[in-house]
């Protein structure tokens, strides 16, 4: 929001008073807190200053010179001289012939900034021309094309031509600098964003520059590679096509990608993402800034963990087992078969294993199913792992908080699962419904022999797996990129997934499958839309009261207190407090 001149910030006990300074930007006077970077002040009033090296989450080396602007200050007064002021109390501005970088300099009282003067435009023309003289201009085959700052600023601030008649500098191309990243040194504009990221954020300073002048090249230190679990963030922040992702390069022109705001489901952090998809296929995930969750970053593991969505093992139709053989079926028949098999058992004989990878909406429907069946045995599969000092949470399930809240699970989740395992083993449990969990994994800990003794095994999953192989009915569900819904991350924040692609083949959104199954078992339930599910959830679970899916918004809302903090965000806040970064 642009700070208006009348906008008075009242200091509170928590926020110490930051003095405001008067700054003239392109002829208009504004007020900003002292310490605001010139580039941010301009941005806040809608005057974007082009830049390459500046990134609010990193230190500012001021090396690209793209953000040079004309700047002025009030005249220096002789001792005892009274400043000359206009009717509004502003002094005249003495414009300085030497341009200033807007990224690292902060605003000062009575400062003037011109973002569109002849001097400023001249600087931009000059820098753009110089940046391109040795650049290969291989846009047609460059993965960055379409989201390249060189392209964007050439259009906005370039002259459209070049006077360069010499031979360009030759540099290394297609350099393997790590398992997931490739470097084209000819495209590099030496902005050092990647160098700073690996040093300042990832604590893995393996990148640096060698050689000098125009022959400068980005390189990894000998004997090292860029292999840390946050390496792909360098590809995101590279303003040009110098760093490209091995996973994404040459797969799709970026302008064809549809961008869907969602979250990563690889662990309990719930990093905010953009899913890039085209015609039913996900091509990439990139982090989306959320300063309460993941800053502007995400880990490589989470980012790349989407290829299973087009895996060969993906279930494409409901399956029903007859005489020991799975056959493709139709949805009504499969649902009916599952309902019949489950209705044959009393609640004390039925166990439902629910996944903490499911959305709140799916969990709510699972709870309905449990209640409809009267199932007395309910468990989830906990996944405890190693946290890191950045974003990765110890909880590898993305929605443990939601599962606890909605299913009403308390205490040790592993003990709950163990009790179901024992019930199956000793024959008390005769029917099992497993929702998005393969029971024959080490985490779930069931064994094939005991599952074999079940009278009914209904599996809802998106992949063919050993448990599905044993199931009497297999219901193909949807992947995270194929559905809307919400989850609660480890810090207790309620966040939203959005649908980037349609569910694969005949598979359906999980909540719809559950709705149909509940209907087949217990009759009508009046749920037609996912909004209906959320409405009932909000009515039924106290914490959700007053919320709707749309109210969650793109950045989520804090829902419950868990006491968890995000190490990366703590460090970021320290750097902001020290003025090292804007944040």
């Amino acid at each position, binding site marked *: 929001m642009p700070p208006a001149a009348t906008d008075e910030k009242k200091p509170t006990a928590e926020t110490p008073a930051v003095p405001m300074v008067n700054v003239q930007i392109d002829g208009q006077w504004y007020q900003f807190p002292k310490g605001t970077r010139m580039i941010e002040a301009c941005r806040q009033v809608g005057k974007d200053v082009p830049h390459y090296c500046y990134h609010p989450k990193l230190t500012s080396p001021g090396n690209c010179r793209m953000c040079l602007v004309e700047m002025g200050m009030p005249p220096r007064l002789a001792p005892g001289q009274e400043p000359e002021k206009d009717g509004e109390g502003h002094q005249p501005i003495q414009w300085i012939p030497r*341009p200033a970088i807007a990224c690292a300099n902060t605003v000062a009282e009575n400062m003037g900034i011109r973002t569109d003067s002849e001097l400023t435009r001249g600087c931009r023309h*000059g820098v753009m021309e*110089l*940046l391109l003289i*040795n650049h290969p201009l291989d846009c047609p085959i460059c993965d960055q094309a379409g989201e390249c700052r060189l392209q964007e600023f050439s259009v906005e601030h370039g002259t459209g031509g070049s006077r360069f008649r010499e031979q*360009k500098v030759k540099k290394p191309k297609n350099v393997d600098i790590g398992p997931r990243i490739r470097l084209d040194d000819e495209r590099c504009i*030496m902005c050092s964003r990647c160098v700073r990221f690996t040093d300042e954020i990832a604590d893995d300073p393996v990148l640096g520059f060698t050689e000098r002048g125009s*022959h400068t090249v980005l390189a990894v230190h000998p004997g090292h590679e860029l292999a840390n679990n946050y390496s792909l963030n360098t590809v995101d922040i590279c303003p040009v096509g110098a760093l490209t992702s091995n996973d994404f390069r040459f797969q799709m022109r970026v302008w064809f990608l549809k961008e869907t705001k969602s979250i990563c489901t690889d662990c309990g952090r719930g990093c905010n993402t953009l899913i890039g998809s085209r015609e039913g296929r996900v091509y990439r995930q990139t982090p989306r800034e959320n300063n309460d969750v993941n800053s502007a970053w995400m880990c490589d593991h989470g980012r790349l963990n989407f290829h299973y969505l087009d895996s060969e093992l993906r279930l494409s139709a409901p399956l029903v087992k007859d005489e020991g053989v799975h056959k493709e079926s139709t949805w009504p028949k499969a649902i009916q078969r599952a309902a019949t098999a489950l209705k044959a058992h009393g609640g004390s004989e039925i166990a439902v294993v629910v996944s903490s990878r499911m959305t709140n909406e799916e969990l709510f429907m699972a709870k309905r199913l449990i209640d409809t069946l009267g199932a007395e045995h309910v468990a989830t599969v906990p996944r405890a792992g190693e946290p890191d000092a950045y974003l990765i949470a110890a909880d590898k399930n993305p929605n443990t908080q939601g599962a606890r809240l909605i299913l009403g699970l308390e205490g040790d989740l592993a003990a709950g699962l163990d009790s179901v395992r024992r019930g199956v083993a000793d024959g008390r449990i005769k029917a099992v419904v497993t929702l998005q969990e393969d029971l024959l994994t080490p985490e779930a800990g069931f064994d094939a022999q005991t599952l074999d003794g079940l009278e009914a095994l209904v599996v809802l999953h998106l992949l063919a797996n050993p448990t599905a192989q044993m199931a009497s009915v297999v219901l193909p569900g949807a992947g995270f990129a194929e559905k809307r819904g919400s989850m609660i991350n480890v810090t207790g924040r309620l966040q939203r997934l959005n649908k980037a692609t349609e569910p694969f083949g005949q598979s359906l959104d999980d909540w719809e499958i559950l709705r149909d199954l509940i209907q087949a078992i217990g009759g009508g339930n009046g749920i037609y839309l996912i909004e209906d599910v959320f409405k009932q959830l909000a009515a039924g679970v106290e914490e959700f009261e007053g919320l709707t899916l749309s109210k969650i918004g793109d950045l989520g809302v804090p829902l419950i207190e868990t006491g968890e903090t995000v190490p990366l965000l703590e460090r970021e806040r320290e750097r902001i407090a020290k003025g090292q970064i804007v944040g």
Partner: protein
Amino acid sequence: MSEPTYKAGKQPHANEYRLIFRNIDREGWDTSIDTYLNEGGYGELKKALGMEPGQVTNEVKASGLRGRGGAGFPTGVKWTFIPPNNTKPVYLICNADESEPGTFKDRYILHQDPHQLLEGLIIACFAVGAHLAYIYIREEFPEAAQIVEKAISEAKAKGFLGKDIQGSGFDLEVYVHRGAGAYICGEETGLIESLEGKRPYPRIKPPYFPAAMGLYMCPTIVNNVETLCHVKHIVKMGGEEYAKLGTPRNTGTRILCVSGDVRKPGYFEVEVGKITMGQLINDMCGGLKEGRKIKAVIPGGSSAKVLRGDEKYTIGKGDDAKELSLLEIPMDFDTLMACGSMAGSGGVIVIDDSRSISWVLNNINNFYAHESCGQCTPCREGSLWMKKISDRIVAGTASPEDVDTLDSVARNIDGRTICAFGEACSWPTESFVAKFRDELTADTKADLSGTLLNPESKLAAAHLKSQQEAQKTEAKPVAV
């Protein structure tokens, strides 16, 4: 102290005033501390240690001493930039990375009179409250590094360095740091980065002014070798007395290094502003070679703007204004600036009429393209571009428009870079084009305008042409 005698052929010229270079090329002089002490060495240190640190700074301020490294900033004023409420350690760095082409004064001090430097440095450290100092010696001076190292250990053994120097309670350690072999290591913030073990990428100012956020983010004073030597003499003479040397605002002596087309190039210590360019070239350097005329002078190291031999320079304003020829220019900071150049590092490069201006400019451009650190865009890309254009002017493959482009590239660098290297690499081109455009243009060929130059574009154009021709011959009417 005896009146020094000098080695044969190395006697100072009568116009000289030997203060800093008193012991250079002296008969019977060596770099040992005993020789230095015999001449009353470290006497000024003892005097300074008896003063208040602030008093020493005030003497340096009163002396009007301006930095001898190139920028000519008042040394005493620089020392007062350390924040008054500072609680961090203060460092002093002696910049012995003498790299500006045409400048060769500091090397003689390092090689022949290291204790003079040390004495000045210790006094400066005492004045600014530094207990740790570094002497950053360029990589290309390996012998100097050994000599200075030896001098440091001698001084330490005699109690002029280390703990409680001469019973004053003042502690100081000095270390020699060998440079990293790049011109940019002489830029003070680049030097600091290099000293910290990093690439010598200059820092942005603001916020990284060394006096507040220098070495390891602590207040740091960076002074040139010659500058620190002057401090010793200021303490000896008193600031006011020292200020009587030279001319007002341009006080003291300075060492001018003359190279190029003169009969007797070399170093000359003179009172600032007391001798003219003509006296320097004709009297002290023996004039030009037989039958030659002066074409140009670069007065302050290769980055200083060139002055034309036949040009008239207007100095002063209004009634005080006077016109000077090149040879009438007094060699001081302010006058050279008024003439559109600078006193810089004192490297005077004389160019006679046998030289091709295109070649001279190309030689300078070559140096700066090679030494650009590559951190910021205008200098990184522009310095090599300028070199490539001037390469072609020399080779006779440039068109007259290339001279305009050359000038415009320089102006896209000047004032737009992180450090003063931007000016260092663009000022030669700007001034050569401004003053010798005719000569540069004469080396170009008008019929080369718009022609393709590099092999890649020639190849691409030939390919396009052959394709077009193939299409023409293959073109047949198409049935609808």
